């Protein structure tokens, strides 16, 4: 039982990281209808920026600065190329970002080298903590707390601020938002930057446990993608829920049959799609033609 609890706990922590990545992904997908293959690279950039910064500025400052820097990268990508695919066939966005992701991964290799690095967890969060019923890594608990905090902040932003209202409105009827005098291109750039920041922040907090490599971006992309489809495109809590489902199912299946643990998310996703094409909590499926 204790064993199961620890697997569950791990799944939850894993799922929370996934959820943060997926939230950014689904925000971009929901508002711009672009399947953003660069999202994994933005995650990796977050991790690399944090790795480079932490030595100089420490954990907390890097936690703030690195995602912002990723946001700037996202902003540039959107302004320079990605915005050109809006409104056209979604396949364009998909293929364009596919190519961008390839190029950017190479840029990471050129800048930081091919090898991986480990990223130190902050000293105060090193080691483990006795929770009574189990012993658990302090950093992971910190990570879970941070992830929950981020998710709540995003939620508050979307639900309680005027900007959030504009973004939500833009996701359901972009043209109308524009006709009411809102600068849609700027809003889209902003949303892309926010999505990038979320990818970046997930990269920062995940770096100490996964270490950084040029390929981590590709590795996180597919789970994010599965989560977004599973949870329902554009659905906030759908992404969080699906993130947890993917995290927990991956983790718990290790206990029973480790070999299938990385297939499980895909199986769940395929099954859900067969019976509920819009995903678990999708309200409107922007992907259905």
């Amino acid at each position, binding site marked *: 039982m204790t064993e199961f609890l620890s697997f569950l706990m791990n799944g939850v922590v894993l799922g929370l990281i996934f959820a943060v990545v997926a939230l950014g992904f689904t925000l971009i997908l929901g508002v711009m209808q672009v*399947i953003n293959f660069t999202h994994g690279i933005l995650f990796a950039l977050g991790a690399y920026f944090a790795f480079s910064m932490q030595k100089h500025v420490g954990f907390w400052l890097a936690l703030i600065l690195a995602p912002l820097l990723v946001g700037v990268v996202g902003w540039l990508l959107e302004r320079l*190329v990605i915005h*050109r*695919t809006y409104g*056209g*066939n*979604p*396949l*364009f966005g*998909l*293929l*364009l970002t*596919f*190519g*961008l*992701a*390839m*190029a*950017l*991964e*190479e*840029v990471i*290799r*050129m800048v930081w080298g091919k090898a991986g690095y480990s990223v130190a967890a902050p000293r105060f969060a090193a080691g483990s903590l006795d929770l009574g019923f189990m012993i658990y890594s302090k950093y992971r608990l910190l990570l879970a707390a941070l992830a929950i905090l981020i998710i709540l902040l995003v939620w508050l932003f979307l639900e309680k601020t005027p900007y959030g209202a504009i973004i939500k409105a833009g996701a359901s009827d972009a043209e109308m938002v524009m006709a009411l005098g809102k600068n849609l291109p700027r809003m889209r750039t902003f949303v892309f930057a926010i999505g990038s920041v979320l990818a970046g922040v997930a990269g920062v907090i995940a770096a100490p446990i996964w270490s950084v490599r040029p390929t981590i971006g590709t590795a996180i992309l*597919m789970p994010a*993608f*599965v989560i977004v*489809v599973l949870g329902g495109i554009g659905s906030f809590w759908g992404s969080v829920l699906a993130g947890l489902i993917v995290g927990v199912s991956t983790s718990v299946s290790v206990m029973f049959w480790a*070999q*299938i643990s*990385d*297939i499980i998310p*895909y*199986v769940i*996703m*395929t099954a859900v*799609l*067969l019976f509920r*094409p819009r995903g678990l909590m999708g309200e409107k*499926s922007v*992907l*259905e*033609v």
Partner: protein
Amino acid sequence: MGRGNAWRKRLANPMWAVFLMFALFPYIPYIGRYISLGTEVVIWSLFALGFNILLGYTGLPSFGHGAFFGIGAYAAGIYFLRVSKGLWGPLFMSALIAGIAAALIGFLVAKKRGIYFALITIAVSQVFYFIAFRWDDLTGGETGLSGIDRMDLGIPGLLRIDLSPPLTYYYFVLAIFILCTLLIWRIVHSPFGRVLQAMRENELRASYLGYHTAAYKWAAFVVSGLFSGLAGGLYTLLINSAFAFVLDWTQSGNVVMMTLLGGGTVNFFGPVLGAAIFIVSRDLLSAYWESWMLLYGLIFVVVILFIPSGILGLIGGRKQTVLR
């Protein structure tokens, strides 16, 4: 005859030029020496042509077609190593098993369209990727399968051709490519093929004409899967091995890119041109620059932004319809 030639005009037929160019390839100075690269171009051309039945003719953006290529590759390898050493057996199985897989997956996706179709095909192809990696007893896992020989081509007692030299295998592949190209040409210009194009233009209207669109999409998926699988089988015989890496989603992206790059949405032979440019440029780039992936990715971006209808579309084809 007369009226239908609108269909024909649209595809002014460079077929014989293409065949001739491939036939003469080994005699082109310098690059002609690189027979197995040529073989690879022919194989990927076949794969892309098969894929284009879906993308170009039916308007279905499968983003997981690498799965069928990979399944075909493994089917040939496994059949050769486990069941029977032969030439035609493995090739037949590669098409058959990939066709069966396509029939099953086609069932899941036949009612879907657009990006949604792409999403599901990506997901399903990932499942095959993991199976290939995990089911070591069958697929050799990460190490893959090797030791798959090219058996002699021939009729016992009459004729024997040793296919192990690269040049003879090149012409063997080319012969199959020509046969399949004629077949695919035939299919896309058949009544069936026209229904596919009708669905690409307007699926709703096609069903209101009385076409069972889901069944047609399924059939297109299966036909496309058959050719992709056969290409995979030929590939296994080329490299004498089969690896799980062929099932990776980036491979699926590559075939989409080849098809678009050449202009598969506007011309029957777009995929062939795309495959040739794609493979040769990749080979050259990676030989001369360690960070070739950077350039490669940027080429994607440039193609999508500036020549979305592909090179043949640029030269002058019908305005592409699949992607906008």
